């Protein structure tokens, strides 16, 4: 997937959970990514963050540390 599209999708998720009350946003973004992003999408996200993560919401970067490691 194009990096722009991935950044857009990940940030959309962060935006939703940021709007929710409580302070578990990072965990909830992480859970959402683990539940709905196929391993190669999560892998791409991790690789992208390792490169520079430009444009990603900081909440996504935090969540990426907490999501399940992609299998394979």
């Amino acid at each position, binding site marked *: 997937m194009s990096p722009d599209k991935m950044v857009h*999708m990940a940030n*959309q*998720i962060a935006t*939703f959970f940021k*709007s929710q*009350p409580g302070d578990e946003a990072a965990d909830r973004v992480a859970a959402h990514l683990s*539940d*709905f992003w196929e391993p190669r*999408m999560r892998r791409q996200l991790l690789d992208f963050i390792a490169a520079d993560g430009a444009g990603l919401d900081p909440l996504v970067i935090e969540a990426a540390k907490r999501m399940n490691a*992609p299998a394979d």
Partner: protein
Amino acid sequence: MKDFIIPWNDTDMGTPAKTGAPVTLTIDGFEVTVPEGTSVMRAASEAGIQVPKLCATDSLEAFGSCRLCVVEIEGRRGTPSSCTTPVTEGMVVRTQSKKVQKIRRGVMELYISDHPLDCLTCAANGDCELQDMAGAVGLRDVRYAAGENHFEVRQNGEENPRYIAKDTSNPYFAYDPSKCIVCSRCVRACEEVQGTFALTIEGRGFDSRVSPGAADDDFLTSDCVSCGACVQACPTGTLQEKSVIELGTPSRSVVTTCAYCGVGCSFKAELNGDELVRMVPWKHGKANRGHSCVKGRFAWGYAHHQDRILNPMIRDSIDQPWREVSWDEALGFAAARLKGIQEKHGRRSLGVITSSRCTNEETFLVQKLARAVFLNNNTDTCARVCHSPTGYGLGQTFGTSAGTQDFDSVEHTDVVIVMGANPTDAHPVFGSRLKKRLREGAKLIVIDPRRIDLVKSSHVEAAHHLPLKPGTNVAVITAMAHVIVTEGLADEAFIRDRCDWNEYAEYAEFVADPRHSPEATEALTGVPAEALRAAARTFATGGNGAIYYGLGVTEHSQGSTTVMGIANLAMLTGNIGRPGVGVNPLRGQNNVQGSCDMGSFPHELPGYRHVKNADVREVFERAWGVEIDPEPGLRIPNMLDAAVDGTFKGLYVQGEDILQSDPDTRHVAAGLAAMECVIVHDLFLNETANYAHVFLPGSTFLEKDGTFTNAERRINMVREVMKPLNGYADWEVTQALANAMGANWTYSHPREIMAEIAATTPSFAGVTYDLITEKGSVQWPCNEAHPEGTPLMHVDEFMRGKGRFIVTEYVATDEKTGPRFPLLLTTGRILSQYNVGAQTRRTDNNVWHDEDMLEIHPHDAEQRGVKDGDWVKLASRSGETALRARITERVSPGVVYTTFHHPDTQANVVTTDYSDWATNCPEYKVTAVQVMPSNGPTDWQEHYNELAARSRRIEAAE
């Protein structure tokens, strides 16, 4: 012969059933007890006594015009009509006596004297109530000479001024006025059942005639929507299906389910041998109660269309012509390619797309193919592009991914919100049932950018129409909640009892913030604050409140958030858990609900259970003897992305046309073109098949057994009406493909697949074919706790326990208008066509809609120099296409609208790849576009048509 014996009585009881206190009376000496309000005619019928009748039928309220049904009642003078006389306690009725017999004979004599006596050659011969009644009353001679009449073309050598020629303008039925007895059943059916009011009785007495529309209208030009209710109600051959005129009256019938929309109407398929003659909505069908729309009743001709492909075909690459081969060769070719791909690119390089048009059993097998044979979770379905946000949103708030009510519930509703849905076009039978309730006085709130028909049509007018700007659903819903909370209209007792109070407190604080007030959001949403306040008050205080919504809610980047907002609104007003209320997603395709239930989504196994749960995986691991991948799989857009990236190489698509139905056509095409093995399993060489290497012919719903699950969670039987022309039902083809890959499946009938579903999926635990056949249909959950199914959900408590309020912050979509693309495009459908149109385009339904048009407001059209009917170019940042314009005030200034039923239009070349944040459901309903005059199709359209023609070539057989 494989007739399905109907355990129900199909007798016409004359007048509709009533509910009321029991009343006991005596009819011809027999005692019978019926509910108060029942007619004497119906009571007699309950007792097994049929009183002769012509103007009465049990789908319509009694009218009392023919006087054939007269009876004698002790203590009453004269001979009252039994259809209009309600029963009273202790009443003593005689249905036969010299006196009534004489009256009836006289009545029949009058009718027959003005009727052409050509029964033997009449299409209704053997299926005509006038004939039956002539027999029943013992009519033996007609004393009147044929004088002035309506049936002779010429009289005394001159033209008969009373004769009106046949109207054959409707493609599916004919109107022959010479046979009409002016019983007005058709007029009343159009009003009471369909709610269109297209027919009237013109003139008086002997001169009265049935007339569609205005004086110079015929059926086609009138308001008639061709639902066929009048044809069904007509007791004579006056209104008659053309198929019956052509093929003769049917001799056997099979009860089955419509394969078009999510209403899931039950039908009697009526045949001679294996030739389908007509489809008649089945009066015991609980979704439709004997009604249907033009698609289900009439648009089945595609089953025999010459375009249908009946032999398997393969090709090495998509630039080659197709080669017809045997099933064995096609399956062997496919299996070898798929296995080769997995060896080279790993097990996650393959996937499947299940069909929302196929049966539950077929869908179950396709996802099983991914999970048990491909050993991954790469399965998705077209629900991705329509109702996936419903699954997520209702799952989060209520704990289950489905509507809360049955359709009957609408009969108890007092206030209805219809949001982002157009029931009279997309869910016509539900639309008719809703209109009936509105005519009885229920109030309607329409939240939609377009002025849909429900906003104002015959005898129906919305109390409030909130014409919001596309993309601002969340802001509007939250503003409604703001009004309800800040004006103290919330049902706190319900909330305390049924929901998590702390979550509610947080939610209430959020919505009460003045920035969510209608005044604050007016500029953004375009909805006048006062109108929004009034609508919110009506909903909160008007009694039973029900919300019905469609794709105008889900197909947005905040689709899931809007669904949660709708759920919040229902909880906030205590509108959950009883008849007349609830949250009701109107599903697009016939089996969208079922395909989701069956585990078509890549993150969940059948019954909406996440693949990460080891206990759930274990159930299937034990049943299937394989290890289930605990990682979620790819969704359709993700598959296409991965294909472009080169890691996803093979796809089995059953009964879907993603190239036409999915957004951003160029991206879909690029994804498909990058794959090494695309298997299309369908009736026709659809658009996706242009990129396919293997084509497996599919079967229609008339050619297989199975079940569909409609929008009310109702599991309906689909029955094999005729043998599959292509040789195999779709489930057999999937099984053969799995077995070609070494699976060793041994299903011999879909009932065995249902048994496997029941054994593995708790909400289906009690479902069997026997139960469905016995009950007619079953609504899941159906298990030990609900052995007969569940019409209403969340009655005492939510599926998840406490209902959960979720904060719904409005986030503007990134698809914004600007100087280059100043208009917002939104998309939808119309009555006569269905989805990508593969079926309906291959029927006479095209007379109503043979091309997609762009609706544009007069103001926007004028600015651009566009006139009605002109070709215009429609451009977005994704691409451009051309179609013709229709200038209308149905759309607001700044908004344009089109349908996507025709491949030539390529409307999805224009839509973008933005999608719902939670589910990737594409944002079909908002695209920033520009419209400008043009001379005709774009280069892309011409190029595409060439490519399509080239890739559909089939090599001549040697």
